[in-house]
């Protein structure tokens, strides 16, 4: 029998999940405020005390591992050549590795662009451009721009392999922290994420957690091994695909509404599900994540406002009898607001609904009608989610809500947006104990156990 402790150092909360391998279940969970600005161990120890209290005594753990999105998470800049091609590929790699894409540049970098990279305190730069054997002029230009600016930010070269050696020579000459991996788009429209994603994780473990003051905790625990969103992505993929003889849930989507961002994950094959469509655009991965940095319950409340048209705001105001603008402003200014009465619960519900609606709108595949001499043909851009079986919700607003289904229902197909390939008749599940990140971590040690626990604790929403 073993006992494991999984820790998620979030931007606001440090969340602990204790696991008993023999009972194949969770012993207890606990959380406390993250204290990365002063000393990360303080918040951790406070949460640990709470955990011991809940479990009825001290526990000796055989393994303690963590994931982190503290201190702003992992901030990346993606650089490519053509916006729809290598830049899009680079952005997808960053998102799949659990990073936030703070900046994205296509074609030649300017001095102002480089300035932005420095000002935004980017953690890692992903430099792409050109297919293998394709354009090399642009990526070499950008490599030189970065080199000459004297930045010390780690750079991953993931572009045209033909000029990788030349780029490395430039980097070495200027003493840059440069890493080389396979091209994110070796052939036109072919996406290759694995090598670059592994490189991002390697740098995250080696430099970033040190720089952000998270490494300190490794005196107390074994290791911080993943950025939190990547842990969630791993959990979702495991839950979808299953492991060995333990079956998964099949095709799922997952929405995680946080205070600052809304993350949307889809686990499903990207092939066209209808015979009358032609797939367009870059190849889509089975496990896809998008992050909406402007959609969140508190820090990003103003982003939620900006995402709405005047007409939509008026509709909410009239339908719900509220002043949405004022309410959102208030929550932006009071990020520690916890709903205290019916009215505030209602506002949180509405905000959650907007986050769900807007985040799936940006994630989901879309159709475009095309009239041809052979009749009507549809282009499909992105992933078709219409056949999705389960929609899973996580994040404070959903876990604490009495009506999570009402919020999640906003993912569904609506006749007013006929060309969005949204889920048609999904079932709804809730990550009620907030364990997804912890299970992603556990899957690194014992995937079967992680899957069994998820199937037990991610439950259907009743109402």
């Amino acid at each position: 029998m073993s006992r494991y402790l999984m820790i998620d150092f979030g931007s606001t909360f440090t969340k602990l999940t204790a696991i008993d391998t023999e009972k194949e279940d969770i012993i207890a969970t606990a959380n406390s405020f993250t204290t990365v600005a002063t000393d990360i161990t303080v918040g951790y120890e406070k949460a640990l005390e709470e955990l011991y209290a809940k479990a009825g005594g001290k526990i000796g753990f055989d393994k303690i591992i963590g994931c982190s999105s503290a201190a702003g998470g992992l901030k990346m800049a993606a650089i490519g050549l053509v916006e729809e091609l290598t830049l899009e590929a680079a952005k997808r790699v960053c998102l799949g590795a659990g990073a936030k894409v703070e900046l994205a540049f296509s074609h030649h970098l300017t001095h102002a662009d480089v300035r932005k990279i420095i000002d935004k305190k980017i953690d890692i730069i992903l430099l792409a451009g050109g297919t293998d054997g394709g354009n090399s002029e642009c990526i070499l230009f950008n490599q030189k721009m970065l080199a000459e600016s004297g930045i010390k930010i780690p750079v991953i070269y993931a572009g045209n392999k033909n000029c990788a050696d030349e780029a490395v020579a430039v980097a070495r000459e200027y003493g840059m922290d440069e890493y080389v991996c396979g091209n994110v788009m070796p052939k036109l429209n072919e996406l290759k994420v694995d090598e670059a994603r592994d490189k991002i994780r390697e740098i995250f473990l080696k430099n970033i957690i040190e720089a952000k003051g998270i490494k300190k905790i490794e005196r107390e625990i074994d290791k911080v091994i993943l950025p939190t969103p990547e842990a969630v992505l791993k959990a979702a993929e495991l839950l979808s695909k299953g492991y060995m003889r333990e079956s998964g849930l099949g095709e799922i989507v997952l929405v995680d509404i946080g205070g600052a961002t809304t993350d949307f994950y889809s686990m499903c094959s990207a092939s066209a599900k209808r015979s009358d469509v032609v797939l367009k655009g870059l190849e889509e991965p089975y496990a896809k994540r998008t992050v909406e940095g402007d959609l969140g319950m508190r820090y990003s409340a103003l982003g939620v406002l900006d995402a709405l048209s005047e007409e939509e705001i008026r509709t909410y105001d009239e339908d719900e009898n509220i002043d949405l603008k004022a309410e959102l402003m208030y929550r932006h200014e009071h990020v520690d607001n916890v709903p205290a009465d019916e009215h505030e619960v209602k506002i949180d519900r509405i905000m959650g609904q907007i986050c769900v609606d807007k985040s799936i709108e940006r994630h989901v595949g879309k159709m475009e009608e095309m009239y041809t001499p052979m009749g009507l043909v549809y282009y499909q851009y992105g992933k078709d989610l219409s056949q999705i079986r389960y929609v899973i919700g996580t994040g404070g607003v959903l876990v604490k809500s009495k009506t999570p289904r009402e919020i999640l229902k906003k993912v569904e197909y609506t006749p007013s947006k006929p060309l969005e390939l949204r889920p048609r008749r999904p079932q709804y599940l809730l990550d009620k104990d907030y364990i997804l990140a912890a299970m992603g971590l556990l899957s690194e040690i014992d995937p079967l156990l992680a899957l069994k626990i998820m199937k037990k604790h991610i439950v259907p929403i009743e109402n």
Partner: protein
Amino acid sequence: MKTIVIGVIGADVHAVGNKIIEYVLKKEGYNVVNIGVLSSQEDFINAAIETNADMILVSSLYGHGEMDCRGMREKCIEAGIGDIPMFVGGNIVVGKQDFDEVRDRFIKMGFNKAYPPGTPFEKTLPDIKEVLGE
């Protein structure tokens, strides 16, 4: 190895000729980037930029080629590949028109060559080699 972007432009789904062109060019030793049917001008141009292509071959069989090809050279210039050689061929205009006039129209549009329906590939291949300086 020289790189050639090929595809069928516009709302045109004729895939057979496209496959034949890919087959022949590959056999001739070219790196062929085939963007397939239902391709827009932007698809051709973006592909040419990323792959550093040496030329673009546009096919059209459904008669609307003239509409689909208009403005393509201007977009190439805007995208920084204004000098890239572009050929067009197939059934590129509506009805039976005098092809000398049709050719003039496409040359004015910025295409280096335009070929009438039924042109065998043996006829276009020397032109491709010539424009690529081979």
